[in-house]
């Protein structure tokens, strides 16, 4: 008898579930399962062995991990700096600043990345300014380098961690910081002992978004990295659409999905961390 609403629930969920399963999960599963099937039809990890045997693939894989990690690290640091400053504002300007942080999310990534091409070119603004102030003798090559991809991704993804951090820090009890100050804690202690643990959930959520965003981004590495700074996504596109190599593509797919899932699990663990998350088991 109790099952009646649950059954209704199942019915309401069925269309979305079925649609996503059919138009998303099933094709993906077929693609992924292909990565475990060698050319002769045998099951196994042969394709992975072949993939990692290629030094270019190894390098692209490591680069993707590296850039993903660095972008996440940088956005955590900048994210905390920005979020702490934002929650410190009065409510009115806080709303406006949050609006400004949200704004870039709304703007086409193509447009935003295009701006970096203008900025980072040898005659671009960065180089002109650097030269003007005498930091550099000759213009530096910034475009089509890893730092360019890093900058582009950081700018693209930073809002995704600022917003959850702000809402996490807003929920820190109002008296926690003054209370700690009264007990003689310095800013660093307050941050590490109070703010960090209390905002852990926001950190986890934002961290996942940034990391998966960084390793699965296509436009930014395509436009700012080019063929010399390939990441897994651009490599995959190249393999499929330029060399028509589905075998490699399936392996890259599996790697990307696995990396996303592992990152999510890891960061969720960080987020649940210690006492805080417990109460929210549901």
């Amino acid at each position, binding site marked *: 008898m109790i099952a009646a*609403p*649950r*059954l209704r*629930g*199942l*019915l*309401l*969920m069925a*269309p*979305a*579930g079925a*649609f*996503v399963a059919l*138009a*998303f999960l*099933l*094709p*993906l599963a*077929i*693609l992924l399962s292909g990565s475990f099937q060698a050319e002769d039809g045998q099951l196994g990890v042969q394709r992975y062995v072949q993939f990692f045997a290629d030094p270019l693939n190894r390098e692209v894989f490591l680069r993707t991990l590296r850039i993903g990690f660095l972008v996440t690290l940088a956005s955590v640091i*900048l994210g905390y700096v*920005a979020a*702490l*400053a934002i929650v*410190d504002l009065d409510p009115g300007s806080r709303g406006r*600043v949050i609006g*400004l*942080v*949200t*704004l870039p999310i*709304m*703007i*086409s990534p*193509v*447009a*935003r990345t*295009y*701006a*970096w*091409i*203008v*900025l980072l070119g040898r005659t671009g*603004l960065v180089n002109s300014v650097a030269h003007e102030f005498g930091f550099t003798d000759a213009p530096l090559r910034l475009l089509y380098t890893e730092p360019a991809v890093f900058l582009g991704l950081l*700018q693209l993804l*930073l809002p995704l961690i*600022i917003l959850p951090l702000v809402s996490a820090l807003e929920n820190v009890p109002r008296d926690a910081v003054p209370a700690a100050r009264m007990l003689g804690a310095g800013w660093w202690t307050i941050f590490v002992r109070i703010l960090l643990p209390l905002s852990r959930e926001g950190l986890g959520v934002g961290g996942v978004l940034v990391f*998966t965003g960084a390793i*699965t981004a*296509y*436009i930014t590495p395509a*436009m700012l990295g080019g063929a010399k700074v390939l990441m897994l*996504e651009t490599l*995959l*596109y190249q393999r499929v659409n330029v060399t028509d190599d*589905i075998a490699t593509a399936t392996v*890259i*797919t599996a790697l*990307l*999905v696995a990396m996303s*899932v592992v990152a999510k699990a890891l960061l969720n663990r960080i987020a649940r961390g210690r006492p805080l998350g417990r109460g929210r088991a549901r």
Partner: protein
Amino acid sequence: MTMRPWAIAALVAVLLFLLGPFLIIVGAGLSAGETLTFPPEGLSLRWVWAVLQVDTLRHAFAISFSLAVLSTLGALALGIPAAYALERLDPPGAGAIRALVTAPLVVPGIVVGLALLRYFVIPLGIGIRPALLMSHTALLVPYTVRVVAASLRNLRVDIEEAAILLGASPLTAFVSVVMPNIRNGIVAAFILSFITSFNQVPVSLFLAGPGVSTLPIEMLARIDFTYDPSIAALSALLALLSIAIVFVAERLLGLSRYV
């Protein structure tokens, strides 16, 4: 407050980093010169005007815009009931379905496009337009489920029960009591989905075809063979459009609360 001055400075720096490129795009798009540079060589609207004259871009805009609206509506139609079921009715297998409908968020767009093309669109002989619509819808369902579920979570359950005890059927209770109170969530889901679809590149990259191309893809293609400020002008226009949508929605929501 010893921390204040440097905190503000840091915040300004972060905002500059986030928004600077946008300003540069606007600046470069308003350039009067022949080539893409910043600072611009004099200001004019000539490239804005020029880019509006390009047929392929206009057509791509129409496709992108209608695709975004239709797929968003589709995702809402699928996502709102699912979100409601997940939040309120504790259906069997809720965890699995929650994972299922949010899965598209974790999987890279390129992969989605490839998988859909190879193992869905081609085997089933689906045309380019329905394929684009279906893939965008599948991609947006998680956004709508997440956002709507979040706003349902913030809405008391008992007002629904109150409506039911006053004689409303579950459907009437949903339409007359739940919907009006999660309207902000639904509008947020709409805007988020619309913008996600409108800016979507990797999935569409595989699925677009002759006569059907989306605006960002056309832009990417055009960047490959133009170096004048027209794409910057277009980017600036699109950015302004996005801002306008958000702003208007905000305004309407804000106003309608008092009507």
